[in-house]
């Protein structure tokens, strides 16, 4: 299976993602933001970081970069596109998933492990997982998910919420919400479920001796699903 990770000026999780994808059996290629064409891929990843120094709004400049037109076309034709952290911000700014990511509620940069609950397995990312609650890492300043009431209704009607912040038992209460996100939303899909944006970093949880293995479970499952 082939994957592509896009590097924007200011991306800093692109190589971690490259290592993670290769570790679990993808043949990954790094793609520069100024390229026009994507290599032939089964999965395209927009990595975390601080593209364009977070100028104007996080992800806003990157969403207009040259390669994004190819990424948008790839997504519109049903290709799998995953945005992690800053990649999620780029996805919302490019209109591939609904909503926006605002400054965290208490204006602090949050860097810690959190628990997230997978709500909906009827998609290529989470299908066949035998686990609902995952421990993953977050590191962001703008992860406070927000959308209009109309958008929220549409998201809920179409089962587009991918993951919620929760505790280790999977309880999705407000007190387990790290950043003020609407309804504890940590990640969402587009309507067709081929585009996934999420704040937590699965690529940081792929080594038992360093962190945890919940990211490994996610990547192994993803590869099996798209094989």
């Amino acid at each position, binding site marked *: 299976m082939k994957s592509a990770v896009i590097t924007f000026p200011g991306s800093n999780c692109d190589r971690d993602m490259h290592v993670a994808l290769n570790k679990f059996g993808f043949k990954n290629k790094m793609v520069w933001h100024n390229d026009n064409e994507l290599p032939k891929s089964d999965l395209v990843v927009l990595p975390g970081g601080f593209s364009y120094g977070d100028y104007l709004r996080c992800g806003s400049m990157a969403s207009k970069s040259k390669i994004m037109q190819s990424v948008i076309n790839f997504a519109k034709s049903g290709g799998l596109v995953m945005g992690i952290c800053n990649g999620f911000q780029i996805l919302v700014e490019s209109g591939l998933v609904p909503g926006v990511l605002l400054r965290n509620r208490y*204006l602090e940069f949050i860097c810690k492990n959190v628990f997230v609950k997978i709500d909906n397995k009827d998609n290529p990312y989470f299908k066949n997982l035998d686990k609902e609650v995952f421990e993953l890492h977050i590191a962001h300043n703008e992860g406070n998910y927000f959308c209009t009431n109309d958008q929220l209704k549409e998201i809920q009607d179409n089962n587009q919420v991918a993951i919620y912040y929760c505790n280790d038992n999977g309880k999705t209460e407000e007190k387990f919400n790290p950043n003020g996100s609407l309804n504890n939303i940590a990640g969402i899909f587009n309507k067709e479920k081929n585009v996934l944006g999420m704040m937590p970093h699965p690529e940081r949880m792929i080594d038992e001796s360093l962190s945890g293995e919940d990211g490994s479970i996610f990547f192994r499952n993803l590869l099996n699903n798209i094989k």
Partner: protein
Amino acid sequence: MKVSAIITLKKDVLDPQGKVIQQTLDGMGFKDVNEVRQGKYFEIDVKENDPKKAQKIVEDMCNKLLANLVIENYKIIEIQ
């Protein structure tokens, strides 16, 4: 022409920065503040001498990049 535009958060969007600014002002003795909302201001010098056309160009920029219309409004406040 020089076109000035301001971008503000929509009314029902929480503005944590504005809130902290208000609290700080309160601590400094400015007790008569109902609310503070923080926005952005742009001065854009466009190569266009017709004010209406210049305004249109900057409005297009606001719609496509400068503002995120899910959470923000924009207003052209000056053309000179």
